[in-house]
Structure formats: C-alpha cells, structure tokens
C-alpha cells in the first residue's frame, strides 16, 4: 500500500473567511494537524475548488483529506471523493452560524474553529478506506423467499417477480389465498368506494401460477433458517415429511393474522346460537353466494346487529388493548351483503368510534345511503338463540337500551401470527441451556408456533414489539424487522386491512430487493445503505464477554464453539453498538472507531482553569441530533461557543472510554444526544439509544472515583425537528455547568 498523504482544505466562502482568521486556521492544520498539504479556497464546493482537491488526489497522491467548510451533511455531491478517506470540519453550521455575532465573540469563535480543524485532522488520520464485505462472493443469491400465501404474500411475490427476481412462495395450507381466500367480497380498493368488490384472490393465484419466476410451495412450512442476506439457508418441510434445502437472498414474512378467539367473549354471546364473528359471517355469505343469507337453522336473516370492537380496545387488560383497524369497514361491508341482497333487512352497527381509514369514509356514507343504521353505543351483553338480543348503552342518548335481531356478528380483532415471543423464549431457553428438563420441554412446545425457525442465537423468530406484532419501525421504516434481510409485511407487523396489506407487501418487496442487491455488493442495508465499512474484530484481544452479541440490535453476531463472536457482516447495519459495548475496544470500522472519535476528543485544546473557558463535548447521533444542530445553525440560533460536537453513528456506538477520556482531559461536561428510546422509540438502530442510557447509568461510579459531579455527563433525547430546542438545551446546560464551576480535572489531562 502506498504511503498515506494527508491534506486539509479550508473554505473561506459563505462568509467563513469574513469572520474567521483563515491564515490562523491554516497554521493550525499544518502545525498541529500535521497535514502535508494545507490549502484554502474562496468557494471550495464550486467546480474549481473541487478540481483543486481532485488534482491533489491524482497528482500529489493525497490519500486522506480533511475538508473544513460546511457540515458533513451539506454539499455531499461536490465533496465526493470515493478513493480517499475524508473528514469534514464543520466551520459553517457548527461555528459561523451558531456563535453570536460581534467582535467580542471573535476570540471564542476562532478557538472553536481551530478545535474543529484539529479534530478533523485527528479523525482523518485514524481512518482508512472501507473495502466492503470481503466474503461477498458468497452472498450473491438474490432469490426472495415469501413466507405466507395470503394477500400480503401473494402481492409480495408478484411484486418481486415482476421486478425480475426469483421467488419461492411458501404456504402452509393446500391453497393460496390465506384469510382473503375465505371472504365473500372485500372492502373496495378503488373509486367510488361504494360497494364491496370481488376479493381478487383467484386472479392473483392465476397470475402467480402463470409467472415463471415464482415457485409455489403448498402444504409447506419453514423448518429452519440460517445464514444472512445473500446467503440464507432454509429448509422447507412439506406436509409429507419431505424436506428441501434451498438458499435465498432475502425473506419476506407475510404470515398474517388469526381472528381473536371469540370463545373468550362469553358475555357477548360466544358459543350461543346465531352469534358469529366476522369470519363466521363470511362463511355464511359464501354459502349464500349472493342470495339471502341464512342462519345455521336455515332461517333467512331478516335483521342483523354488528357489535364493533368485540374484545378490542379493551382497557381492562382482559382482551386486546388495540384497535384492529379493519373491522369497522369489514362490518360495513358485511352489512352491505344483507342490504344488497334485500334492502328490507334491518342492519344495525353498534359502534363506539367508527374508524374507517383510507377512503373508508366514502364507504361508510354509501352504507348510510343504503340504509344501514349506525348507532353509537357500547355493547354490554349479547344473548343468542332464535331471537338474539344486544344490550348496550346508547352513547348519544346516554341510556341503556337493546335491540333484537336474527343474527349477531362480533367484530373481533386481529392477532398477529408473528411466531415466538423472544422475551419469553430467552428466559426458557436460558433455563433449558442450563439443563432444566422442564424448560427443554417448554422450549420445544414454544417452537411449534415459530414461523421462520431461525437458528440465530437470539431466538427462532423476529423480535416482537407491542401486543405480539413483529417490530418494524412504524414511523420511519416500516417492513424493517430487527433481523436484516427479513422483512415484515401485512397484519403480522401491525393490524391492518387488505388494501394496506397489499401496499405493505409491495414495500417489503422493495426492501428485500434492496437487501439482496446490497449484500451482493458487500454493502450495508438500511439505514446506512451503501456503507462499505463493517465491524472488524481483533479476536486476540477479545475476552469473550458476549456483550457485543447480546447488545447488537440486529442479531448479527453469533458465537463459535469457543464463545468468540462470529460476525455476519450481511446482517450488520453498521450502527457500531457492538463497538460501544466492547469493554476492551477490539471492535472497529475502517472509517469509524474508538480511535477516530477518541483522537478528536484528545485533539481539543482545553484551556487552563484560569482562562475560565469551559469545554463541553457533545456526542450527537448523526441521524437526528446532528441534523438538528445543523438546522439550529441554518436558522441562526446561537448557542455556547464552548461546545465541541462530534457526530456518532448511533448513541449505541458511544464507548464510555470517550467520556472518561474527555473528563480526564478537563472537559467540564459531556452531552449525549440521541433518539427517543423505549416503547415508542425513534432510534434508527432500534436499541442503540437505549443501550447508551443503560451504559451511562453505570458510569456514575467512575465519575465519583474521579471526584466529579454526576451532572457532568447528561443524555438528551433529540428529534430531528428539535432545532430550537437543541440550542436551548445547550445553553441551559452551559448555564448549569457555570453554576457547578469548572472541572477540577483541568490541567491533569
């Protein structure tokens, strides 16, 4: 490898040169940053400026550059030099735009800029160019496995095949269609949203069998899944007992839902004659085939009552706590079955809130026009029999009342078919591994509902979120499960209707395609899509503590027989949580490591006590907090010139060594800014910010040992929209530190 050559380029455009002493900065880059080449330019991002850098790379054999200009998030197209390592010193958003104007601030402003130059130079010296996953020749499989042959699965299979990918579609029953296949009609997908439509299942199934790229496996389940994106190894078990091995590139799990067991609702007439759930009504409608719907006793239904939210949105903790989202529209559709066959049938829908997403309002209005009566009420009791009775509280007239009918339909909810709950599993599995026979027995029972039977050390299925649905970030990245290369589609990830399920399936197919393409090129998947770096571990130093294996949010790390970590690069999302977790710091990325950040911390010039200039280190998540800081600059909100901000991939990647080093060096405070954690997390790496909080909770002792107050290290949740708040947080913290006084560690560092 050729020798490394370092260069720094300082931009004086955008007003930087008017306010900062560029010559002074150049001097810092040369003397302290030890850059071989240091140049400034009045407009670095224009063609001429960019050419200047390119020429140096070509003619001067520059291998590492520090661009001191705007934020690393700006001008990424201009400053795109794929053949060299690059750091960015943020002089514009990070200094010029956030430090108060005026000559009285010149000194601190210049000091801030100088530090960012020092930090940029220090960082780039520790970086090397990522080479991509070395094993990518083994991750070239691009077949997409779709598990589940219902509406979501069929849609995903067709979408993938139409995009040119081979598909294996696995369905455990003898026919495609899933729940949709049992319906008489579906809620309309298209304008005018006035009448039920044919389900479309038969057409889809025909399209699938006519598509040469899709291979359908009926009566088949997934007996085992191992590997990683681009090289998943699956065993497909047929009912007959035959097991086929196959390799696939990505997996779409579309395992659907099961209706909530109505037997759990005896107070709503479960088990009594002529009380059915929505699935039961579909069967009756299929039997009627468009004619009058008849009860089990053969009597034609002349009046029907639909009871919404049966066993749903339950606040007592007995039944489903959530709204299944589809069942209001489903009841509207089913009421139309009756009205369309015979307008004289009395149809009453007893609802609390009528929730009809999408174009459902039109459908609702259409039902009203057809004469379906909607009564706002809460049902308390249903009695079945020849003449059924629904007792309810009328919520508008505020009184108990009742209505009689030939048939009662309960709108029960969706229970996800998401497989094994990993929290429960881990507990049982640990006991089983410890030799507990009972636990072993329990473990194999639990496994019977597994969908994927993953051989991952983290358990056999994708992790679940609330209420047994598969975790998939509901705001920013639906379909992404916490297992890279495995995508969730349809009501197994959140309750939804059929139209939403088809949209979901299309989205998941796109994700799966991305995953196989990235794996084939040795790159990361979402959210650092295209990143060629991956964790490199110096196993010689590893103490087999297992922290990385446990803390990796994506189950990327297995263990070998000797309990050393085995990285599955293709499963890795490049968050660096493992790096933050490792107590002996043996995990790193080529362009992001304990050193790239650690050396930046060390590069900061911490003034002596008598200068009375505190220093605050900010470790800001690059996904939300750092952009918010930039935006604060764009809006010209000012904050303390004593802060030095370093972007991190995720708070999860923060190694506590950075914090203790900073404090030892005389920093007065450390702020960590990351995404929201917990149940409604916003962390782009799911668990990263949570891990940071957890680790920080243990840092207290260290602080006390150093004789420092716990307030010297704080953690804040910051969203990307928090630009104003982030400036205030900084200023408030600076004021708080002012009250606390300067760090006693100064001068010892």
């Amino acid at each position: 490898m050729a020798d490394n050559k370092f260069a720094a380029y300082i931009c004086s455009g955008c007003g930087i040169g008017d306010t900062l002493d560029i010559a002074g900065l150049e001097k810092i880059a040369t003397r302290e940053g030890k850059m071989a080449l240091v140049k400034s330019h009045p407009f670095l991002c224009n063609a001429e400026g960019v050419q200047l850098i390119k020429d140096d790379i070509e003619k001067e054999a520059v291998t590492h550059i520090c661009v001191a200009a705007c934020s690393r998030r700006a001008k990424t197209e201009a400053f795109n030099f794929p053949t060299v390592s690059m750091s960015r010193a943020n002089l514009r958003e990070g200094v010029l735009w956030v430090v108060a104007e005026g000559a009285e601030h010149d000194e601190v402003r210049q000091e801030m800029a100088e530090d960012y130059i020092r930090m940029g130079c220090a960082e780039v010296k520790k970086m090397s160019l990522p080479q991509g996953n070395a094993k990518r020749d083994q991750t070239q499989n691009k077949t997409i496995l779709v598990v589940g042959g219902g509406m979501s699965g069929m849609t995903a299979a067709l979408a993938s095949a139409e995009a040119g990918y081979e598909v294996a579609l696995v369905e455990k029953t003898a026919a495609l269609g899933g729940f949709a296949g049992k319906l008489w009609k579906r809620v309309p997908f298209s304008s005018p949203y006035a009448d039920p439509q044919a389900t479309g299942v038969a057409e889809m199934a025909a399209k699938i069998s006519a598509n040469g790229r899709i291979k359908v496996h009926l009566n088949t389940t997934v007996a085992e899944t191992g590997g990683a994106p681009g090289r998943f190894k699956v065993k497909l078990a047929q009912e007959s007992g035959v097991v086929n091995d196959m390799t696939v590139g990505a997996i779409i799990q579309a395992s659907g839902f099961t209706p909530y067991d109505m037997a759990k609702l005896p107070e709503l007439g479960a088990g009594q004659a002529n009380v059915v759930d929505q699935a039961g009504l579909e069967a009756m409608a299929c039997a009627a085939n468009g004619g009058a719907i008849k009860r089990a006793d053969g009597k034609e239904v002349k009046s029907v009552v639909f009871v919404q939210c049966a066993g749903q949105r339950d606040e007592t903790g007995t039944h489903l706590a959530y709204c299944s989202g589809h069942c209001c529209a489903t009841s509207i559709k089913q009421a139309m079955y009756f009205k369309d066959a015979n307008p004289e049938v009395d149809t009453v829908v007893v609802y609390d809130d009528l929730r009809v997403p999408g174009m459902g309002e039109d459908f609702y209005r259409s039902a009203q026009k057809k004469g379906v009566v909607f009564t706002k009420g809460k049902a308390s009791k249903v009695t079945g029999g020849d003449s059924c009775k629904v007792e309810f509280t009328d919520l508008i007239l505020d009184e108990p009342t009742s209505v009689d009918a030939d048939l009662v339909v309960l709108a029960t909810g969706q229970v996800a078919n998401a497989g094994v709950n990993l929290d429960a599993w881990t507990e049982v599995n640990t006991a089983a591994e410890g030799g507990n026979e009972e636990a072993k027995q329990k473990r194999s029972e639990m496994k019977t509902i597994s969908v994927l039977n993953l051989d991952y050390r983290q358990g056999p299925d994708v992790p679940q979120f609330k209420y047994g649905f598969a975790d998939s970030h509901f705001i920013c990245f639906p379909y992404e499960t916490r297992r890279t290369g495995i995508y969730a589609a349809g009501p197994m990830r959140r309750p939804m209707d059929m139209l939403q399920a088809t949209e979901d399936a299309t989205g998941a197919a796109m994700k799966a395609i991305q995953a196989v393409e990235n794996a084939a090129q040795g790159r990361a998947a979402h959210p650092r899509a295209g990143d060629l770096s991956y964790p490199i571990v110096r196993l010689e130093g590893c103490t087999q503590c297992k922290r990385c294996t446990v803390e990796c949010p994506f189950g990327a790390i297995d263990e070998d027989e000797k309990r050393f970590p085995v990285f599955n690069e293709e499963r890795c999302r490049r968050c660096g949580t493992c790096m933050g977790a490792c107590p002996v710091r043996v995990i790193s990325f080529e362009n992001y490591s304990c050193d790239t950040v650690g050396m930046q911390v060390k590069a900061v010039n911490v003034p002596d006590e008598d200068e009375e200039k505190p220093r605050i280190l900010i470790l800001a998540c690059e996904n939300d907090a750092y952009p918010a800081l930039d935006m604060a600059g764009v809006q010209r909100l000012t904050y303390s010139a004593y802060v030095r901000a370093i972007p991190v991939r995720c708070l999860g990647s923060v190694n506590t060594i950075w914090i203790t080093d900073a404090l030892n060096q005389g920093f007065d405070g450390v702020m960590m800014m990351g995404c929201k954690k917990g149940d409604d997390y916003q962390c782009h790496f799911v668990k990263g910010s949570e891990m940071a909080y957890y680790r920080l909770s243990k840092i207290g002792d260290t602080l006390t040992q150093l004789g420092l107050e716990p307030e010297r290290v704080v953690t804040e949740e910051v969203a990307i929209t928090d630009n104003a708040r982030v400036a205030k947080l900084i200023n408030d913290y600076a004021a708080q530190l002012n009250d606390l006084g300067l760090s006693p560690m100064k001068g010892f560092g």
Partner: protein
Amino acid sequence: MSDLNTQAVARYKNNFLREVEERVEEGNMVKMCMQCGVCAGSCPFGPHWQHSPQKIFMMIRAGKREELLTSDSMWMCTSCYNCIVRCPRKLPITHIIHGLANYAHRLKLVPKGQPTRDVTKLFWDNLMKVGRINELTFSLALYFKDGLVQGIKNSLAMQSAGLGLLKAGRLNPMEIFGGHKCKEQSGIHRMIAKAREIEDGRRGLLA
C-alpha cells in the same frame, strides 16, 4: 292525539326513521348523520334544546317517536344556519328541524302554548289573509295570543318600542284597517290550498 297521528303509528309501526324519510322535509338525509356533534355545539340556542339536533337524529334512528314529536326541541331553531354550513355530512339540518316541527304540528303533538309554534301559526295566518304580513296586526295578535290580560301587559311592556317605531315611521297605525295587500288574494288562497293538498297526498297525510 289526532287521527293523523293514529294513522301514522299504524302505518309505520316502529319504523320512525322511515316515517321521517317519507314525511318530513329533507327527512331522507337523517340517516347520513355521523353523530359528530358539531351541530349541537354550533347552535346559538344550544343550551336550551332538550334534545340537540345530533340527539334528535339519533332518536329518530332509535325510534323514539313520541318522545321526540311531543318535545319542544325542534322549536328552538332560530334559523341561523350555523349547523348547516358546519355539518361535515352536509345534512340540511335547519330544514329537517323545521320539517320535524311542521310534522309534529300537523299531527297535533306539540305541547300546548309552545310559543314558537304559536308565533309561526299566527304569522302564517296573518300572511294568508292578504298575501303579505301586516306587522301591526301580527304584533297585536302576538301580544294577545295568551289572552286579553296578558296581552295588555305585553303591549305595555313593549309600548315604548312601539311608540318609537310609530314616531320613526316604521309602524303604521292605519295598517289595522287593512294596509298593504296583494290584489290576487283569493287566487293565492286557492294556490296554497292546492299546494297543501298535493303535498299531503305525496306524504300520505290525506285523511
């Protein structure tokens, strides 16, 4: 109870919604209400309604016929049209309320002495006389609708206003002898009688 009411009960059994749809002005829109409550919150007389428009529409669906038609709720409408322009479902609420009031009145179910009902009747009778409203005879009739004694009290209470209007040239004492009128009075009488006959026929209200 009137014969018309007995006939209606027999005809519609318990289907009050259908009765309203067939017999009340714009009644076929009642079913489109989504119970949001915006109308109830928009009415200037909101607190005075025994049953708000929202509740009225629910009562119709719930078959609370007697309770609704004998209540004085529909008589609280000032015709401000607030509800109409705000209803997300575009129900012609004002017209439905007017229609319900009219229907209850036709069926003789309105409580005795309901003041708005009395005013609307006096108004219509006054206009029917000569084809136009005679404000003087209308006001006098209003003041004396509860009898002579109450009438004198009412007139005295509003005496200053009356005198003021008189002085301002906005109340003409000569109107008591006739005043403005249409030339084609008898034609108008026949026309209205015909209209009512047609409407009653359409609504099944002919005895």
